[in-house]
């Protein structure tokens, strides 16, 4: 009889005794791959790990095995409370589905006095009857919106330039609030505007009705004005001036800005970030450009390869982190979204990156003409097709 300890192998599971849990994998480079479990946990491992997991070639006494088990890639006799844990994690990751459609976009008009080179939709025309949303359409859109089971809704005005149909905004806002009160829902209202036509009266109205303002700022003047054309060529100047006006009346935190990335932007990440810092913004969204709409047709002017955007993004993010270290409070929205998804158990509200896709489920678009779309991109594609069919071109 021996007094020696049994070897470790007699304590481990036999190789065939573990079961797989659902997971995905993809090669990262020639030496490594990443495995992602159903609940969103991940492991970066040498190439071939996924295969050895499935083929039962793992050393069940190894750290790798224990990591895989802890992160729910497999389970064995020692895993406990498994189904409850996984179900909870899965539900948390999918909790953006609660209540279904939360973001409702109202396109109050297709008209716009800007003619931005990358715009997918707007029309420079005084033809209000043709391109403005009517009250009847707004009523029907509101009916549909408040059938959503979500307890917290967001109503976003877009266009064209929504302020060109400000009368309709003034009609919709109290209607929406009344219905929200009646159905016991919370309601946020946002207007996406270029701010060029804003008046003190409009801004005061937004302040009184607690409407958030979101505007476009592509960067310093030479970048912003290069794409955002308007009569007078002063889009940057007027945007900056009106951002200050809006902040004075609404409050600094109720005015946000988004940038659109163009060919010119790709060469100047630092200048764009400096502009946002200079104007006192605390968030910037370095977002890739939509490949749809007129931007795709004008590829020679506004298109770019993914690699160039990645370089732009890397430089931009590194610069932001450098600024953060110097005490400048500026966050990058895209990084925040991606890191939330990778490092935390929680989902995000970003409808462009949701599983299942946010189209319809998270967002819906009510167009000026009464058509309803499951995403803004779908609306833009439809507008493009219409423009081609009627041989119309915006910006002419």
């Amino acid at each position: 009889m021996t007094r020696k300890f049994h070897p470790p192998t007699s304590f481990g599971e036999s190789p065939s005794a573990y079961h797989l849990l659902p997971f995905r994998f993809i090669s990262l480079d020639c030496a490594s791959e990443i495995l992602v479990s159903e609940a969103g946990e991940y492991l970066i491992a040498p190439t071939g790990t996924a295969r050895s997991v499935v083929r039962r070639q793992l050393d069940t006494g190894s750290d790798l095995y224990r990591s895989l088990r802890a992160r729910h890639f497999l389970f064995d006799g020692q895993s406990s409370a498994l189904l409850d844990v996984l179900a909870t994690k899965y539900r948390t990751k999918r909790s953006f589905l609660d209540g279904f459609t939360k973001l409702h976009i109202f396109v109050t008009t297709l008209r716009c006095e800007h003619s931005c080179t990358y715009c997918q939709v707007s029309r420079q025309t005084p033809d209000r009857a043709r391109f403005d949303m009517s009250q009847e359409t707004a009523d029907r859109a509101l009916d549909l919106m408040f059938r959503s089971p979500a307890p917290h809704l967001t109503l976003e005005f877009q266009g064209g330039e929504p302020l060109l149909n400000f009368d309709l905004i003034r009609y919709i806002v109290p209607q929406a609030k009344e219905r929200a009160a009646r159905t016991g829902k919370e309601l946020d209202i946002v207007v996406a505007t270029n701010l060029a036509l804003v008046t003190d009266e409009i801004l005061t109205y937004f302040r009184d009705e607690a409407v958030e303002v979101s505007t476009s700022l592509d960067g310093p003047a030479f970048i912003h004005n290069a794409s955002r054309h308007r009569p007078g060529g002063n889009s940057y100047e007027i945007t900056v001036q009106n951002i200050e006006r809006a902040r004075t009346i609404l409050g600094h935190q109720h005015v946000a800005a988004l940038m659109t990335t163009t060919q010119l932007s790709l060469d100047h990440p630092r200048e764009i970030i400096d502009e946002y810092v200079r104007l006192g913004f605390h968030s910037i969204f370095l977002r890739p450009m939509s490949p749809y709409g007129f931007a795709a047709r004008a590829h020679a002017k506004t298109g770019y390869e993914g690699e160039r955007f990645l370089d732009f993004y890397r430089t931009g993010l590194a610069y932001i982190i450098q600024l953060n270290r110097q005490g400048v409070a500026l966050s990058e929205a895209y990084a925040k979204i991606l890191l939330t998804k990778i490092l935390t158990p929680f989902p995000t509200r970003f409808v462009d990156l949701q599983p299942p896709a946010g189209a319809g489920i998270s967002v819906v678009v009510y167009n000026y003409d009464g058509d309803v779309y499951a995403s803004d991109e779908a609306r833009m594609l439809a507008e493009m097709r219409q423009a081609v069919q009627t041989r119309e071109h915006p910006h002419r």
Partner: protein
Amino acid sequence: MVDETIYSREAVLRACYWFTDRCHVFVSRTQPGVLSVRITAKPGANWDSVVGDFENAFLDAQLRQEIGQETARIHELIVAKAFAEGDLLDDAPAGEWRDPVGLQDTDGNDKDGAV
């Protein structure tokens, strides 16, 4: 030529789909149990890397299918359990709520003894 005893049709199609940004791909069956895959590179594609990646893509696609098959039941269980507990997908019963027998008090809570 792809032997269907090694790579399932689904795995082959999925693998091919990944390459449609770099190649034109045509899949057909020339004889029972054998799939024929024809690849032509699109302009600008790096042919050497396409060929190497293609073979690996088949292996990976097949592996993903096996994982999917082996874990299908537990995946269903996880999703069912995730959404069942939270009543997330429940629809309220149609019609107005009524309580003719008086099982719930005015706050909608079950009275003692109610089932």
